[in-house]
């Protein structure tokens, strides 16, 4: 069914999406925390910047990332100085671009969960000898689990589905940057519709299952809040 090239592309895609999701959960959580709790004037502008990838064409984002990561860009000079070479057309270049591109899909669900949590559980924890970190891991995290789950699923799925940014930054190198969406594009270019069908249908099934998962999480959260309301 899948050709060997397909399997490589699928493996690469999953590896990319997994890496990006892990990184996004780590950096997205403090951003979401800050956005949910700050009174600062910066909240608006920072929130808008985080949400930008929602509305920008991926090509715009990819273009500027390419410039920044290039030999004359700030990022490019930094990675060169660190002896890492240049990022464009490499797996880690794709990771970096995807992190930026999928950021809002991870930050926003977590931010919503933090906002609806409110202050009270944190205060209750503080009166029970919980320092800030302990409070986060033993109170905040378990109470906002559905938000984190939604964030992880959306971040993963969105990274799997990206195309424009990959094309701009990564090009088309097997097992380095040729992800499933690019592979499909290649098949269509070469008029190999049969192969394109197989991968495309696989993507549709995958996306459907992901969304089913998200709604499952939401419904679960709704049911418990419903039970609360009924009391």
């Amino acid at each position: 069914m899948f050709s060997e090239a397909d399997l490589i592309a699928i493996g690469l895609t999953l590896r990319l999406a997994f890496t990006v999701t892990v990184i996004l959960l780590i950096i997205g959580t403090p951003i979401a925390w800050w956005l949910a709790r700050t009174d600062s004037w910066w909240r608006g502008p920072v929130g808008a910047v985080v949400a930008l990838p929602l509305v920008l064409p991926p090509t715009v984002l990819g273009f500027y990332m390419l410039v920044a990561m290039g030999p004359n860009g700030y990022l490019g000079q930094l990675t060169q100085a660190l002896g890492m070479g240049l990022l464009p057309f490499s797996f880690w270049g794709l990771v970096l671009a995807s992190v930026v591109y999928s950021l809002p899909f991870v930050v926003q669900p977590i931010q919503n969960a933090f906002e609806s949590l409110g202050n009270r559980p944190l205060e209750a924890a503080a009166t029970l000898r919980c320092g800030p970190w302990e409070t986060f891991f033993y109170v905040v995290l378990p109470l906002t689990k559905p938000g984190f789950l939604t964030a992880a699923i959306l971040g993963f799925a969105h990274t799997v589905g990206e195309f424009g940014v990959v094309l701009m930054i990564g090009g088309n190198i097997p097992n380095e940057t040729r992800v499933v969406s690019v592979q499909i594009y290649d098949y269509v270019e070469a008029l190999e519709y049969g192969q394109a069908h197989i991968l495309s249908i696989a993507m549709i099934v995958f996306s459907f299952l992901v969304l089913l998962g998200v709604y499952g999480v939401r419904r679960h959260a709704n049911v418990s809040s419903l039970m609360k309301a009924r009391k």
Partner: protein
Amino acid sequence: MANTPSMLRARVKLERQSAQHRFCLDVDCELPDSGVTAIFGASGSGKTTFLRCIAGLERPGQGEVVVAGQAWQQGTSFTPAYQRSIGYVFQEASLFEHLTAKGNLLFAMKRADQKVSDDYYQEVISLLGLETLLQRFPIELSGGERQRVAIARALLIQPKLLLMDEPLASLDQARRQEILPYLARLREVFAIPILYVTHSIDEIVQLADHVLVLQDGKQIAEGELTEVLSQPDLPMFTGFDAGTIWQGQVIERSETWHLAQVECAQGVSVWGRDTGISVGQTLRIRILARDVSITLEDATASSILNKISAKILRIDPDLDEAMLLVRLQCDVLSLTARITKRSAHELDLSIGQQVVAQVKSVALVC
């Protein structure tokens, strides 16, 4: 009162500016190291904010909070809430929803200031009647049950000071009656000093030994319960709920009539409904001003049981324009009668006059 051991010294200054109004809390007090101290005031008087300052949940711009010899706030040093030896009961139970009742208690026990002994745990559980609730999640508990778990949780952290912010306010009357006895027992069983925020005189009468009264962010009275509650000028003692608290000893019980006689001062005693108390027991009685009427001479035939001769000290206006509050002196005790202006006029009451106060009902509390 330089010699009384004062466990809690609090000087707190805090300003809040919002669009509509400016709130300023400015309290400086020393509170005793045992028993229940009620922090009393109308809503917006700053009592909750004061409690939060002591807990460290609020950071006053200027302040000093010293509890049991430990400075929690002094100068620029500020101990965060999680390092203070407090237990806190919020107005809404604020249990952790992801944990069962037992999980919530274990959460506190793991972090308790001293290791929680089995005996102590059992005592808390049975005092608050939690035996059958432990496996349930907070959403499966009623409001009253949740609040009981929250109180147990605060006790199990083994604090030096227990802070309670209107723990009954979010409950209906029936639930309140369900929890009050637990609180009264808590006061007797555990030697933890309690700061208890409330706007209910009933709760104060049943629970408090000491009272701090706040109004618009300032303290307007502080002292022993009976002492403070006999100050008639305090604003909460006007209006429909105005009343007096007396303390006395049961000197007689009448089985036939289900009544008990309580002597509150030399020659001043009242009859109230016998609630199963024993002779010699000390208790508090509450007399509402609206239940007190005034006659000029001792009317012989009357359905009213309690007639106390008294002298008129003052006559104050009431919040209600048709009413007056007549402040009376009965031996060393004071009493307030709430009567209509018309009656006062018809009886031609004047300050210093001897009258007879008729008390329609008295409530014997605890």
